[in-house]
């Protein structure tokens, strides 16, 4: 049985190694001026979903000078005569540029897929717990066990650890949902034709903005006191310290957004570039070298995929962890009697 499985696996791997070269030859014969591989085109947002080589065009929703326009696809917008395309950007026929583009794009679709999958998974598990499986007995099945491990991990190792003991229960829902959603969004990028939506700054910025607002609204009196009137320092130092603290409120979620975005984007670029070496080699040295070298590049990509799967989960964990740390730092209440000691306690808390 294992021998059959191993044989099939090797056959599939060999097929995968030769398949891109065939496409590369097709592409190389078409145009000479075009760059061999369009790295940015694989990374940026599109107005279509690619499934098994076919393209599903997504609706365009555009706001121009207070008027809303709805089209089923970009071509429909162009055919209606109300819009024209200039350098890949839609403008109205009279030259007015689009003031707000609310179009549904591939990244947005994958955000929805991630959220829907996270919802299904959690609701499915919640129903099982309601029926008593996992509560009165042990959790049954692989999925249910994975759910319990993840949930207990987020609750005990993230929420309980970094948020004050009397408040952490309120934030578990947010932390767990953001963890699940980011994990699914990251892992979607590993599927063929899949897109990891978190490799888009708007997606990560939205997630970080949610964390930012939760942090500010859960801020205790001490949190705001530390921002505007840092206790225990000379008043003149506060002139420098207060702007820095106010800036710090915004840089934390900004770093959160950039971190997730940069990590997912770099993984994507790396894989496209390494697979692109097959195309480049075929273009320069001919198909024989391309086919020969593809064995190296495809196996390297396979190794990178494992790394990428690990990074996908790690980045989801880091996003959740840092959200919990920021919320915990804001929600913490200090002892007013011992201001200096409390400062030392804060310093050690951050260092821990």
């Amino acid at each position, binding site marked *: 049985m294992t021998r059959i499985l191993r044989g099939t696996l090797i056959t599939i791997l060999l097929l995968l190694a030769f398949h891109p070269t065939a496409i590369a030859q097709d592409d190389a014969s078409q145009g000479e001026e075009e760059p061999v591989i369009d790295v940015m085109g694989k990374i940026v947002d599109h107005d279509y979903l690619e499934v098994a080589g076919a393209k599903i065009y997504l609706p365009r929703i555009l706001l121009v000078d207070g008027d809303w326009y709805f089209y089923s696809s970009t071509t429909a917008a162009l055919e209606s005569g109300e819009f024209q395309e200039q350098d890949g950007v839609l403008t109205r026929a009279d030259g007015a540029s689009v003031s707000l583009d609310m179009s549904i794009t591939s990244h947005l679709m994958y955000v929805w897929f991630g959220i829907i999958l996270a919802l299904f998974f959690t609701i499915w598990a919640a129903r099982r717990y309601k029926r008593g499986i996992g509560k009165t007995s042990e959790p049954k099945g692989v999925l249910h066990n994975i759910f319990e491990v993840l949930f207990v991990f987020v609750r005990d*190792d993230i929420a309980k650890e970094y948020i004050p003991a009397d408040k952490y229960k309120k934030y578990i829902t947010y932390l767990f949902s953001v963890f699940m959603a980011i994990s699914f969004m990251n892992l979607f990028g590993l599927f063929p034709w899949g897109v990891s939506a978190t490799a888009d700054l708007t997606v990560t910025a939205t997630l970080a903005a949610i964390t930012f607002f939760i942090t500010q609204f859960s801020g205790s009196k001490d949190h705001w006191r530390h921002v505007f009137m840092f206790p225990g320092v000379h008043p003149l130092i506060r002139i420098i310290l207060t702007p820095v603290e106010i800036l710090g409120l915004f840089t934390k979620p900004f770093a959160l957004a950039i971190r997730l975005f*940069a990590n997912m984007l770099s993984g994507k670029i790396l894989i496209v570039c390494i697979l692109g070496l097959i195309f480049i080699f075929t273009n320069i040295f001919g198909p024989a070298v391309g086919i020969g070298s593809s064995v190296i590049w495809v196996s390297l990509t396979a190794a990178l995929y494992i790394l990428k799967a690990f990074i996908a989960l790690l980045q989801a964990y880091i996003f959740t*962890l840092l959200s919990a740390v920021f919320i915990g730092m804001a929600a913490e209440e200090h002892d007013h009697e011992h201001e200096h000691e409390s400062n030392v306690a804060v310093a050690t808390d951050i260092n821990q």
Partner: protein
Amino acid sequence: MGFLAAGIGAGIITLGAGIGIGLIGKGAVESIARQPEASGDIRGAMILTAAFIEGVALFAAVVTAILALGITV
């Protein structure tokens, strides 16, 4: 000129962040070797500190990206 600045900047960022995260890794591995029962706490602290360093490095990376793309603010 922007490309040159971005390239040199990216190199320096990588140097700094690499040294920083390397030192964290060194400290964490040494502590775990000395006290294996505290490995869970140490790992958490390690990832958290590394994430902060990464945050600073990413700020610099954004600056280089702005330089390379020629965006004028």
